[in-house]
């Protein structure tokens, strides 16, 4: 594997030890993620509980949704269930009872549920957090429409407004995340409700894409964390990362537009970088600001880098951040001495090695 061990500072090492200790104490969180009801999240979650219980782990069911299928009933009958509490006619997970029982694994369906007013926590995911803090591992299921930063996108597709949410950061903290994938027609068949309105299959297919990309993003974060924990610098990745290099005089607009389009198509990541130059004229400063404004409008991450040699600086940044494509502008005017020393572009291409270099004419 192309990876390099980084030397870490004492602070980083301490931080790592602390992180490891916290990690050891806390329960493990595993999330089954679905894009619609009917894909089978709850069943997958319970079935994993059953298998673990058969392998001798101490598993209880902490919460299950009221509507069940015969398949689910069959699995439930093999597991210990801690009954839900009823508060003002609303069923609530009995967190206190679970803490008292203290199993090693607790199954919690419907992570996004809200608790009634007056409960210790406003939402079920906070109860789950408490179980994790107590060292109980949790296996849970959630539909993407409840993930806070996806809510708007999902609403645009479904037209349904949901009020309950689970923070993305909580999802990112999961040790394991599993996507429960199924083609849309299966959800329609099982669910029945999606039959109304135009193009339910199209809607479901869009939700499915959102779910797959969300899972990929979470997995990407986990990989970063894993590499960081083990002091490995990232030199490869599954995600396309595009680095657009600009200067004050660069014709930045087409480069950034293309970078944005490519990043969107690949569902990748877009960074615009500028290597600070020591003395630049007021005109250049203005031009630079204009270019940076274009980058901000494209919602690119912006990096102002410092370094003696712009090419070296860009290459180092690209390699450190797992960049897969570098976009650069190239002036067709060539200095005579560059015939002998090689142009900056030659040096960039030579140094890029395992990164695509895309040259834009100026």
């Amino acid at each position, binding site marked *: 594997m192309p990876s390099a061990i980084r030397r870490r500072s004492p602070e980083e090492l301490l931080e790592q030890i602390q992180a490891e200790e916290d990690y050891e104490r806390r329960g493990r969180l595993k999330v089954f993620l679905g894009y619609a009801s009917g894909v089978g999240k709850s069943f997958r979650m319970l079935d994993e509980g059953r298998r673990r219980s058969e392998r001798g782990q101490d598993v209880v069911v902490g919460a299950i949704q009221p509507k069940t299928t015969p398949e689910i009933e069959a699995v439930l009958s093999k597991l210990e269930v801690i009954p839900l509490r009823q508060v003002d006619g609303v069923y609530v997970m009995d967190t206190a009872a679970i803490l008292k029982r203290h199993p090693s694994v607790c199954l919690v369906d419907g992570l996004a549920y809200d608790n009634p007013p007056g409960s210790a926590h406003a939402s079920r995911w906070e109860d789950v957090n408490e179980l994790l803090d107590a060292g109980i591992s949790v296996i849970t299921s959630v539909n993407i429409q409840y993930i806070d930063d996806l809510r708007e996108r999902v609403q*645009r597709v479904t037209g349904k407004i949901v009020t309950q949410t689970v923070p993305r950061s909580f999802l990112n903290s999961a*040790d394991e995340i599993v996507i429960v994938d199924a*083609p849309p027609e299966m959800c329609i068949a099982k669910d029945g409700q999606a039959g109304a309105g135009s193009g339910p299959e199209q809607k479901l297919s869009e939700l499915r894409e959102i779910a797959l990309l969300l899972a990929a993003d979470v997995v990407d974060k986990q990989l970063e964390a894993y*590499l960081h924990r083990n002091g490995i610098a990232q030199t*490869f990745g599954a*995600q396309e990362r595009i680095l657009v290099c600009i200067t004050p005089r660069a014709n930045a607009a087409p480069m950034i537009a293309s970078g944005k389009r490519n990043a*969107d198509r690949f569902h990748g990541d877009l960074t615009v970088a500028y290597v600070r130059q020591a003395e630049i004229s007021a005109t250049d400063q203005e031009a630079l600001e204009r270019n940076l404004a274009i980058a901000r409008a494209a919602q690119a991450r912006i990096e102002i880098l410092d370094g003696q040699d712009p090419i070296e600086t860009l290459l180092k940044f690209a390699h450190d951040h797992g960049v897969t494509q570098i976009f650069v502008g190239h002036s067709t005017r060539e200095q005579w001495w560059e015939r002998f020393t090689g142009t900056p572009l030659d040096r960039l291409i030579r140094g890029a090695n395992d990164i695509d270099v895309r040259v834009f*004419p100026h």
Partner: protein
Amino acid sequence: MPDRPPLGKLKIFLGYAAGVGKTYQMLEEAQAAKRDGIDVVIGYFEPHGRKDTIAKTEGLELVPRRKIDYRGGLFEEMDADAILRRHPELCVVDEFPHTNVPGSDRLKRWQDVQVLLDAGIDVLTTMNIQHLESLNDQIWNITGIRVRETIPDWVMQQADQVVMVDLTPRALLNRLTRGVVYSREKAEKALENFFQESTLVVLRELALRQTAHEVEIRQVDYDAPGFDPEPGYRDEADQPSENADRILILVTPEPATAMLIRRGKRVADYLHADCFAVAVSREIDLHDMPARDREMIEHHLNFARNLHIETRVLQGQDVARTLVEFAHLNGVTHLFLARPQPSQWPALSRRSLVQQVVHLARDMQVTIAADRANRQQPQVGSGAGL
């Protein structure tokens, strides 16, 4: 191979490693289909000694394999002819990327499946992301293994459905250590090499992203006439294709050309761009070249055609000029060149091909594709067990 969609429907269960449960899930679906009264047979099934999976074949009709004699050994392959004679509604075919033993009617199992589909038989099949052609170099880079059995991207694109069979790397590693996937001895070896957690995480992410891409390209085409999206519904990436990209790949005898073709095609697919590949020769039909170079170019052009890239041999004295002129005439927006070999860095006062092309192609983007070779672990594997 014609591009018209085949009559039968193909569904691919996509995973990222052996043991994630592709075959199990495929068989579960076959069983469900049988319960619904569909006429199902198993065309090919690889038990790998996994009890749970074998149990899932119970009650499903198995079309006997064909025995083929090769170099004194007896090999078994799927018997496409027998399946055609039996003509079920739905056929289960494990290990889609498998290469048939010499002496079989077709080189690859996916070609056998193509025949079944053409005859109107629906097919369920399994594969891992490692076997997708356009990811071959990236997989090499990540795992150190050069996968030999690949599925061209257009074959996956033709599938009616691609479903991701997901399992977390940790659960997979647990299965391995419990001996569910392989025998203990083989498992230990697998754990050392391919099944490192970080490698699995990357492969899984690739599979998730690929599945998302497959879902996306099957969605309604917003650019199609008559489609009226809700306002505020499109994003910029879905603008109609007035500034459509056209990608042109330069084919040379250099081995890096294969990598260049895969990368160019992958970028073209994601950008929904047209993709061409050309070689440039002084004489018509490459006659001026040494035999070895000619062979390599033919080989690369053939490879490109297998990936459904249109190819051409251009005649011209100056490679850069000929390439760029052709590009201008054909509305190419984007050229793909391989990285110069170390020996080809410009000698004093001579410009490299890259430099020449960049200077001439004033209104085009030029990509110098990365060398995604894996230097740490130069090794070759069949990839069959991945």
